[in-house]
């Protein structure tokens, strides 16, 4: 187990090195830069060049790359070019808001998605099944920006029940969490339904019934545990994706989260911010995937962690 985790972490480090390198050079390959004349039209070129030089942007790219690594290995993600403060401060300042909304969305998706899929499988071909399938199809096909607009129009503008922006009270969380979890709910419900249908057909379910196990336990213990393994695999990317924030939801509801800053940093050409957030997201994905794999191995003893 420990050997496996170390191996996976080493593989994760390799992933990160590739990620950092590719992002760094792609970012620099784009025409223009944070202090190019096209970005800042009202500042004289000489001034812009002075500013760029003070950040070391006049050096060749390979040298900048090595410098970046030097700082990174000291845990320093650099100073934001376009906003006040260091990148480290930005991430630690804005991540909690994203994580709170995202964390709630993960919990909400699981609490709604799994029972929905379960009911659809048990009442296959009945109303519960069709309702779930219809909702799941809508959930997967409606884009989140349409949904967020519709929801805030309905609940904020028309009914005036929920606030449209900020995170000042618990009411503010409802709409963003709903928007974030809509798609995952659809996915989890569909996945649970199909794997549950498969599990209920299995011989071991018949064995459980032949032992006199009650229908509830047959479904919730024998079948569900088997049906949840694909959901656990999906959990890694889901948690990583939701906790790090969504640009659309965060800008729609004016949540001071990381997702919003990420997209802004790209349009701003804020090199250090882009790199910092990419590294943070990358680490998060690597760790969440590792955790979901370990979780899977705990649930399913057939999954061997020692093999690669």
């Amino acid at each position, binding site marked *: 187990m420990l050997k496996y985790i170390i191996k996976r972490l080493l593989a994760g480090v390799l992933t990160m090195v590739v990620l950092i390198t590719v992002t760094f050079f792609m970012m620099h390959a784009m025409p223009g830069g944070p202090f190019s004349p096209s970005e800042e039209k009202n500042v004289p070129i000489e001034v812009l060049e002075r500013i760029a030089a003070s950040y070391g942007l006049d050096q060749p790219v390979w040298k900048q790359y090595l410098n970046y690594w030097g700082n990174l290995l000291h845990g320093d993600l650099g100073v934001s070019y376009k906003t006040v403060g260091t990148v480290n401060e930005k991430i630690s300042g804005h991540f909690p808001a994203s994580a709170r909304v995202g964390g709630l969305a993960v919990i909400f998706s699981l609490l709604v998605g799994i029972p929905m899929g379960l009911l659809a499988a048990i009442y296959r071909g009945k109303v519960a099944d069709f309702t779930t399938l219809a909702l799941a199809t809508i959930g997967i096909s409606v884009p989140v920006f349409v949904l967020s607009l519709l929801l805030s129009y309905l609940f904020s503008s028309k009914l005036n029940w929920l606030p449209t922006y900020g995170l000042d009270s618990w009411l503010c969380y409802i709409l963003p969490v709903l928007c974030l979890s809509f798609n995952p709910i659809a996915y989890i419900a569909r996945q649970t339904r199909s794997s549950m249908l498969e599990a209920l057909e*299995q*011989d*071991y379910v*018949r*064995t*459980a*019934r*032949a*032992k*006199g*196990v*009650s*229908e509830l336990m047959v479904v919730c213990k*024998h079948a569900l*545990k*088997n049906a949840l393994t694909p959901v656990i695999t999906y959990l890694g990317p889901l948690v990583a994706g939701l906790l790090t924030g969504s640009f659309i939801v965060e800008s729609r509801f004016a949540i001071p989260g990381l997702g919003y800053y990420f997209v802004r940093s790209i349009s701003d050409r804020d090199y250090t911010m882009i790199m910092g957030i990419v590294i943070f997201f990358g680490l998060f994905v690597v760790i969440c995937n590792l955790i979901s794999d370990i979780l899977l191995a705990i*649930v*399913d*003893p*057939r999954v061997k962690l020692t093999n690669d």
Partner: protein
Amino acid sequence: MSKLLEVKNLTTSFRIGVGLVQAVRGISFHVDEGESIGIVGESGSGKSVTMLSVMGLLPDYADIKADSILFNGREMTAMNEKELRAMHGSEIGMIFQDPMTSLNPLFTVEQQLTESLKIHQGLKKQEARARALELLKLAEIPNPEARLKQYPHELSGGMRQRVMIAIAIACSPKMVIADEPTTALDVTIQAQILDLLNHLKQEMKTSIIMITHDLGVIASMCSRIQVMYGGTICEQGTAREIFYDPKHPYTWGLLNSIPKLTGDTNEKLIPIRGTPPDMLMPPKGCPFAPRCQYCMPVCREYMPPRTVLGDTHAVACHLMHPKAPKVLRREG
């Protein structure tokens, strides 16, 4: 001996998209206490469905009708789901064909073995574990303490089937239904499993219903045999009657397709040609007629009546009619 299980006129059909599959068509049989019977037939003859119908373990698109299913003096057709469930695992145990898929891969042997003990006998964890150890020893599983903690994928096929047997006999049931218990195992393991079942039958005085397509499996175990074809019983009798005085051409065919160990290396096995009937549209006459060498015009038109040949022996074949031509069985 008193009758433990008596089934009268059982009919099971499955509603599927294109119609009604008549898997079992009005069969009656009984099992005495402590007796072993064998149900033989090829795939699709309705032998497994018969027993799953008796247990009430078929999916809800199955239509089960019976005049009566008496188990231990109680009418099972009148039972609700809860009463049936109380019998499953406690009074009737079941062993299934494929031990690879019949055990839940995500639970340990102990969890699966103690489950019915906890449900039916209300045993606590420690008592259940002690009983589970006993059961594994009964099922002749070496190193039982270690096995309890293992998962099914860590056991061999034969071991898993032994665990299945231990589960089936956990609550000392009056009857064990073994649905092709040796089909998925290789020959040496088959013999061991059959020995074990035989041994348990004598030790625990359990009735066993052995479902198989292999007459050889039954020969050593069962006192009575019924041969099924096309959802009906075509011949039933004691093992001696079926093996030495078979009357139905289908039984002849089955016997001719078993290799004999008489040392005759030139022995030819005679297969039964053709395929079983389509139970979506079963033939109106004898289901075996299209494949029968002795088929007469009447066979295709009318279902043969059950002819009783003795206390135990009965056969459903038009050849039994007094005016039918006398035919001799072609020995293989």
